[in-house]
């Protein structure tokens, strides 16, 4: 009988401890233990009148690049060519503001997936890593269990889907399953998911994988609206949500102390005209204690060493192969006539 009571007390204590631990997380657990940063930035709309979506995605591209994520770790997907579109009065530029202060296209842009390559299949394959073996490195998401990934999607969507190129769509369930597959394959540490589209929050409602912080430009039943039009270009040039996001990000420096909760509150309803949706329940940390650079910046692990590094074995060059090459080069080489002259002469 006594043993039973003591057993019960121990159980109660352990339960109590676990509850208190769940309530406030110790300081060291607040810090992220990610080792690298990646960004997947997708514009899903085609056609000139969707110029603003390209400007949206390039605004985020510009910011993450400025804050330190290298081009090799940014997967940029753009469905249509706006910069060199014949309708663009200023070739090779994309502006997100009618004052045209910053060309978000810049002089050093690397688009990884473009045009017809931006499809639901390629997007899901990219996330889950199930790409064709010949796929080049720049088109792969080579993340690991220490990667913090920023996923930004923009385009036209509805309740539970996002259209790709006006011809197909990804549903919220498919997206949630793709993220779950990523989690099971240990392809991420944490994900920050941003979506700027109509009824955007419907896209993250189905998520069920851990460590995802999600935000959306509008709730279900709301439209996301564009910000302003540039009469010289002739179309709306940026969406409201991304406009205010960029305004916020332009003031963020790589060493800034701004937190994710500031980012999540970046566009109040008075500015956005739609309600920004946030989903925190899958995310283990408190957004007000997570620095914004955990997702928008990049960790650069630097190990300071005072000792010289000793390389024990110097790799030996394969001399044999070189010798073989030399014997091969001895074969007769020459320039060929650039026209099938032999056929002309015989006839």
């Amino acid at each position, binding site marked *: 009988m006594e043993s039973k009571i003591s057993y019960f007390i121990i159980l109660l204590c352990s339960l109590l401890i676990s509850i208190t631990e769940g309530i406030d997380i110790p300081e060291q657990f607040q810090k992220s233990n990610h080792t690298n940063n990646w960004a997947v930035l997708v514009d899903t709309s*085609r*056609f000139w009148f969707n110029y603003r979506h390209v400007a949206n995605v390039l605004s985020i591209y510009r910011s993450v690049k400025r804050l330190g994520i290298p081009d090799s770790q940014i997967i940029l997907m753009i469905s249509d*060519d706006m*910069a*060199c579109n014949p309708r663009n009065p*200023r*070739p*090779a*530029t994309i502006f997100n503001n009618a004052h045209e202060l910053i*060309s978000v*296209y*810049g*002089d*050093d*842009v*690397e*688009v*990884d997936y*473009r*045009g*017809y*390559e931006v499809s639901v299949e390629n997007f899901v394959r990219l996330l889950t890593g199930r790409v*064709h073996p*010949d*796929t*080049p*490195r*720049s*088109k792969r998401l080579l993340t690991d269990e220490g990667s913090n990934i920023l996923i930004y999607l923009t385009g036209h969507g509805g309740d539970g889907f996002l259209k790709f*190129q*006006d*011809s197909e769509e990804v549903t919220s369930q498919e997206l949630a399953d793709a993220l779950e597959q990523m989690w099971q394959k240990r392809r991420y540490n944490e994900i920050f998911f941003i979506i700027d589209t109509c009824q955007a929050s419907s896209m993250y409602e189905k998520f069920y994988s851990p460590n995802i912080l999600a935000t959306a430009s509008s709730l279900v039943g709301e439209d996301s609206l564009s910000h302003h039009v540039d009469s010289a270009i002739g179309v709306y040039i940026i969406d409201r949500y991304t406009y205010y996001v960029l305004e916020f990000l332009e003031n963020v420096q790589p060493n800034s102390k701004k937190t994710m909760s500031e980012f999540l509150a970046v566009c109040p309803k008075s500015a956005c005209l739609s309600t920004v949706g946030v989903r925190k329940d899958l995310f283990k940390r408190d957004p007000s204690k997570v620095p914004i650079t955990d997702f928008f910046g990049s960790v650069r692990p630097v190990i300071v060493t005072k000792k010289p590094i000793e390389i024990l074995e110097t790799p030996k060059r394969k001399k044999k192969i*070189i010798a073989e*090459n*030399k014997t091969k*080069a*001895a*074969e*007769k*080489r*020459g*320039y*060929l*006539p*650039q*026209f*099938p*002259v032999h*056929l*002309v002469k015989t*006839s």
Partner: protein
Amino acid sequence: MRTVFVLCLSLLLKSHYVRADDFKEEIFIKPLPPTHLYVYFQFITTSEESSFEHSHLASRSLGEVISRFQVDELHLTLTEGQWKHSKWGYPILDAAPGAELYAWFSPSVEDVDTQWRKLSATLSGLFCASLNFIDSFNTVVPQMAIWPTGAIKTNQNITSRLRYATLPREIVCTENLTPWKKLLPCESSHGFSSLLNSRMIHNTNYHSIGVHVRKMCKVDNCSDINIEIKQTVALVYDYKIIDSMDWSFRKLFGQGLPGACPLSSSSKIYIDVSSNDTYSFKLSPSPNNVILSQRGGSDTMLAVYDIKSYNHMMNIGVKYDTKDKLLVTIPPPLHFTRYVLGYGKEFGGIVTEITNNYWAPIDVVLLENAPWWLPIQLSSLRINGKAESKLVKSQYFSPGRSRQKPYHLELLLQLPPKSTTTVTIDFEFVFLKWQEYPPDANHGFYIGSALISANLPTARNYTSLPITGSTIDSIINASKQWYPAVFRTNGAMVSLPTPDFSMPYNVICLACTVVALAFGPLHNICTKELVLKPVGSAISLRQKIMNLFKRKKD
């Protein structure tokens, strides 16, 4: 004595070392009167074949691609716009609109097709282009039209190792130029490449960037070879866009030339000033020297600037003395056009017209490359309207296969002097599968350009380098018997029978309406009985009123 010897030896070694790896940059500028200006950049990196991986100038990323996939020769161009041969003459290197890729693989490659797919996929990552769309269904093996420009082992079958593909829809923009510039030793910070600002070069009528890798003989007997990586940019400016005929580097590129790339062994600018006699202009600053080049009966005056001797900002420009004169352009010996025939969504045809302006016959190879969704039949081939023609000296046809292989026709023609030859071939339209339509199917479908490989007897309007030459000075006095060139015609566009993709939705709506309309009466007929009402004798007006009240009571 000993120190002198050591010094000599070290100098000798050093000069040998420098020769192993070499980088040259050049610009060639030619006015294309009356309204255009041709600017051609070439950056040549040569390195020894054995030390390719250890080269300090050649790009490692490209070098690895070449050695990994065992490529003997590679040509990649990304082009926007159409070169107008009849108006502008011939470019140094012609390129097809969109993306064009062709390569010869080494004889040690067993499965060329797999290697080709891998190569195109890798290059797509390297140049941010959709080259991974190249597959067997859009690849041809040209039999007569293209020949390797490099030194190759002559005793082997080279044609079977060649693969050629174009993507006529491919767009060219900053994201292609950025990785292209990163292959250069000076990138875009110094030298001629600093002039390549994307805003200025995409504001042209025609722009084409290219990478050409070939093997060159190091010595005359070709016992040793070098690898030459040539990166080119061809631009055609419109005087209307730059607002005047007087051009300068500042107007063309938005900035002056900051000097030569410190890693280059030669940095030269050549300006074709032949039109100065008829249409005089002044160059400023004045060139280092002016060379007369006599090549195949045509004289060219070249003004040469050696930028290595300048170390300050330069703004080379031209000022015309008179601005109201109109120049008559001399048409080149050979020009061509291509268009699509027919109406409706069932049959059509492709016509290629080749005009020979020269007084002697010219031999050409015409390569028609039709995608699998545009099947062409050899039986419908007509030359000048006739099925049989004496002009055809040789012919090759490889029929396509649905979703696997394109249709490929090659003709070796002898064009009679002063004539136009019309080559017509009919095609039929094919229905694609539901998923095969691109998102913008109503935009139309692009047919790639045809290749015309010509053996020109004259060097009129001809600017290409001789095969053994690498730099632009090799064209000076380079008279030969023949001047071979490969041209690309303009592409074409057809609109395939495209279904209305909202049709299923419309059908559902319509069907539901029809069913609803039909169901109501049918249901009424089935459930309600029609009963004859007995008709009584005529009633008086008073009775009628009474009846009305009666009904109301009920």
